[in-house]
């Protein structure tokens, strides 16, 4: 019962706005909110791994988000110019282009993640203040590098034709990109849960978080696992960035910074180290933002803050956070 409480709260919260609007509008907003929540979850899940699990305060997460968006943007641009996969009416080619963009984003972020962890994060494990300072410096550098390579201005993100536009299901407008995002988010959630709780690697990582020395003694190189987890978290941030860029149809060097705050809020709401928590947290943030933006446009800005304050007042460790 106690574990079900957060889910019940989310459901109650989700149904509350029905009092103030027509069901049709409500459904549209709900789909949009779910999509936004899933997009935020993609970013937050990476942060859950890095911050929640490994206890590294990674302020470069937002820069990795931007790098993912730009890497995908570069890949899509290349495919469009060389092969015309974006403009082509074939769904298969469009999907392939999207996959290529996701792969490019993930690959770039994996490389960046390994480099970041090896060079600047490893010396400061366990020292929060230095983690903050040093990842902040890294994020400045990464963001400036984007400005140097791709230019400092916002650019339009080309979206494959098949994924543009929307479906109209019984008068409910369903945009196509969000559906892809929701699917991707769910896949990431299931994948992460399986990886962490059903595989040997997940077991070693979770044990390593509890006691790195003990796992070392058992003959596993915990640092190698941590590098991998950091890289995985970076890749998730990058894929989140790419999806966000496709959703907004634009890329800008500073896009990661704004999302970083969302992601932190979500991880705090959900509780450190809980993938389920960050999923629920992300959905809460996404849904409440959309409802409030419709009902009281002015208040939408503060709703995430209010949500975070409320959750922390009731449960200081977040919805699914273990008290430690």
């Amino acid at each position, binding site marked *: 019962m106690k574990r079900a409480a957060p889910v019940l709260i989310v459901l109650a919260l989700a149904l509350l706005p029905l009092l103030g609007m027509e069901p049709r509008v409500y459904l549209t907003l709900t789909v949009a909110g779910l999509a936004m929540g899933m997009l935020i979850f993609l970013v937050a899940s990476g942060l859950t791994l890095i911050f929640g699990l490994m206890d590294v*305060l990674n302020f470069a997460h937002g820069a990795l988000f931007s790098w993912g968006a730009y890497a995908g943007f570069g890949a899509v641009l290349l495919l469009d110019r060389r092969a015309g996969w974006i403009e082509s009416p074939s769904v298969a080619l469009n999907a392939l282009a999207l996959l290529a963009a996701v792969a490019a984003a993930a690959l770039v972020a994996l490389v960046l993640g390994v480099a970041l962890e090896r060079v*600047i994060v490893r*010396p400061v494990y366990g020292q*929060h*203040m*230095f983690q*903050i*300072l*040093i990842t*902040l*410096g*890294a994020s*400045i*550098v990464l963001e*400036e*590098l984007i*400005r*140097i390579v791709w*230019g*400092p201005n916002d650019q339009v993100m080309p979206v494959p034709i098949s994924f543009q536009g929307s479906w109209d299901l019984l008068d409910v407008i369903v945009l196509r990109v969000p559906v892809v995002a929701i699917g991707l988010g769910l896949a990431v959630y299931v994948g992460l849960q399986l990886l962490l709780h059903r595989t040997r690697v997940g077991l070693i990582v979770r044990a390593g978080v509890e006691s790195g020395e003990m796992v070392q003694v058992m003959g596993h190189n915990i640092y190698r696992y941590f590098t991998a987890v950091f890289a995985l978290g970076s890749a998730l941030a990058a894929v989140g960035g790419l999806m966000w860029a496709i959703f907004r149809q634009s890329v800008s060097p500073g896009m990661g*910074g*704004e999302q970083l*705050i969302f992601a*932190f*809020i979500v991880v*705090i709401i959900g509780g450190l180290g809980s993938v389920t928590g960050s999923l629920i947290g992300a959905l809460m943030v996404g849904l409440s933002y959309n409802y409030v933006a419709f009902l009281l446009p*002015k208040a939408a*800005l*503060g709703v*995430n*803050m209010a949500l*975070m*304050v409320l959750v*922390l*007042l009731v449960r*200081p*460790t977040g919805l699914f956070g273990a008290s430690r």
Partner: protein
Amino acid sequence: MTTPIASARRDERARRWRRPTLWLRLGVLALFVLVPVAVPSFQATDLAIKIALFGALVASYDVVIGYTGIVSFGHAMFFGFGAYSVALAVGRFGAPTYGHLLLGFGIAVLLSALVATLIGAFSLRVKLIFFAMITLAFAEFAGILAVQWSALSGGEDGLSPKMPGLFAVGWEGGRVLGVPLTGKLVTYYVVLAACAALFLVMARFVASPLGRALQAIRDNELRAEALGVPTFTLQIVSSSFASVVATIVGGCYVMWVRYVNPESALGVPLMLDVLLMVIIGGIGTLWGSVIGAAVLLTARLLLPDLRGLGTLLGGSEIAQRLTERWLLVFGVLFVLVVFFFPKGVLGTTRDALARRRRPA
């Protein structure tokens, strides 16, 4: 009977006037006093007072991050509270008077103390690292609010209030010792005096028994708590105190600049500057903040002149962008400083001096 501590204090007091650092500090202060008289260029005066202002702001941040060990990202927000509050109080009610100025400072101080206590009360309770993120979120929110609520705050354009009486732009007071007395000059000295006073207060604060307790919390929170130090309360006291100082500095900033907008007074970019300054100067040194502020502000003033280098480097587009993005250089520098001189300029110097005095 004299306890060892009492006799150590007596020795300390006897040596008070022979300490070289005291004369160094007084010398720096004298330099600040002389700048507007000796160097009549506006740019130099502006730089000097901004170094003093940011030095005080960064020192107040150092009280939180360096002496208490709490990482806050909302410190710039309190600076903004002061700046906006003074700008609004002076600019919104017709002709500005000293009363309005005081009112602005008063409201700002109360507001900052309240907000800082509230934020601390619900976020320091859990885990120190939450504080960083929660204050970041609050600062972001305050920035958005200032941009959106343009009826009150002037939005992106900001506010440019007129200052009352002696501080007004047009005020002239004849000549004193051959130096023309203007509103700008009066403002300079008043703001400088305020900054110096704030520095004294902060130095007293961190050297007090309370400050000692804060440093104990920073070094080992569990042990401090076990020794009976009310850690939670003291952390709130420290962050509220620093926030109030930042607010007063913000008000002084507006008195000098006569302009405030979200980007320059409230936002995350300002916070980044403050962080850089405190790192460069040295965390936990208080006086290092003046060095940090001087280095960063001077660099900012001079570095844009380096843009011409782009044409020297062949003039290609990448080279052009490379020199335009001096923040990149700064980021790299920042990481290197954190890595190799984690104690900053002053901390490293102190260590080197201590090593020379006592060869190991």
